[in-house]
């Protein structure tokens, strides 16, 4: 068999896998009606602990320990810091996913969608996932990078007023649509 045959077989196998994945029912179907609620729940709860996290990563603390504490204590602190850094990473990922979810809802409910923006988001997602996984493995392997926490609060301290207003509008419209559909169902009418 020539390489061309293998190439085509490989390509078709990839197509079959992609087709199967695309047609498979997602484990957790996020229906459109539940979107606004899901968005309201999306949150930046970890922000509450930001000052403590900052403190945990303060360089002065670490310098102080290096002078006064035993190696064992320093190791323990390092390990605990890595745990905090992992939690911080997970929080960043949560923020990222929240924004993606919001972007999807808005795109699905928009009369026009710009391909450039949607593909830009795909690129950013791929970049984020790559960096996230690399960092996570580094932390798990015992390398403890010190995150720069400054600026995080600016990022996640709530979305802009316009975005909040859009979410409110989205929720109201979805509620109206659900009410309309249920009242039509009660009357035995098709929602066409």
């Amino acid at each position: 068999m020539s390489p061309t045959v293998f190439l085509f077989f490989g390509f078709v196998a990839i197509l079959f896998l992609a087709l199967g994945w695309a047609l498979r029912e997602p484990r957790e179907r996020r229906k459109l009606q539940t979107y606004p609620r899901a968005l309201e729940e999306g949150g930046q709860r970890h922000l509450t602990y930001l000052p403590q996290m900052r403190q945990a990563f303060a360089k002065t603390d670490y310098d102080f320990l290096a002078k006064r504490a035993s190696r064992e204590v320093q190791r323990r602190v390092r390990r605990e810091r890595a745990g905090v850094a992992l939690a911080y990473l997970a929080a960043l990922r949560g923020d990222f996913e929240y924004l993606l979810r919001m972007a999807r809802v808005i795109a699905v409910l928009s009369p026009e969608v710009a391909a450039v923006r949607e593909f830009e988001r795909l690129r950013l997602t791929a970049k984020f996932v790559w960096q996230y996984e690399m960092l996570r493995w580094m932390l798990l392997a015992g390398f403890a990078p010190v995150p720069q926490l400054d600026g995080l609060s600016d990022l996640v301290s709530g979305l802009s007023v316009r975005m909040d207003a859009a979410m409110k509008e989205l929720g109201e419209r979805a509620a109206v649509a659900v009410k309309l559909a249920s009242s039509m169902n009660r009357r035995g009418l098709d929602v066409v």
Partner: protein
Amino acid sequence: MAGLVYSLRWAVAISAVAQVAVCGLLLFKGHFRKLPVFTAFVAVNICQGGFLYLVYAHFGYSSHSASVLAWLSEATALILRSLATIEVLRLVLSSYRGIWGLGWRVIAVAYGAVLSYAAIDAGSNVALAIVVADRGFHLAFAVALVACLLLVRHYSIPVDAVYKGLLGGFCFYSCAVVLANTVGQALFLRQFADFQPIWQAATVVAYGVVQVVWAVALRKPLPVEEKQHALLPASIYQEISPEINQRLRLLNEQLMQIWKPEVTRH
């Protein structure tokens, strides 16, 4: 080889019966009202079978005229197949105007890119130009369809099982034709004398399987078309989408800031 030819006849007969069953379901269950192009595609396929039978009976299986007429009828069926697929996709995405707008652009780009490659490939391979072009068409079709379905999945848009069956069937058949043409071409180039029954058997069996899947899918009623969702004003997307992208970019930078000190340490 005689056994294969005999089996092929049976496969053709079963496939024809399945096609008639699908057509019957479309007509008697009233699906043709919602799927007029798809119904036309199935009907044309049945007519194509009869047409080819007459052509081969009149001109002979190996004649040039029969070959030209057969490929012309195939081109008509391929055009209708593309239109039928777009019809089904349109039904799936009709409630999501923006995503449909994005979807057809994805289809056009994927289709155009793969088809251009196929045209170049067919042009450089004159002896097998039609087979290569046919393979290219099916490849482009499958790539475009899968790309659009991935988009639908990305936005968590629900797709009814009937439409999944129809779209999955189209894609499966195209993939099967790509493989059959590739193997057929390889056998032809190795001067394997009886490559044609093998190639035909592969395509007929694949088509028969698709017909059975469609028949099973079409036994159920088609979903009631959803009312157009209450859409947000276009300005909200224009304002918020770039802002979200900007925030995602900043989150990426945040990760980079963590990454950089570690990188410089090593």
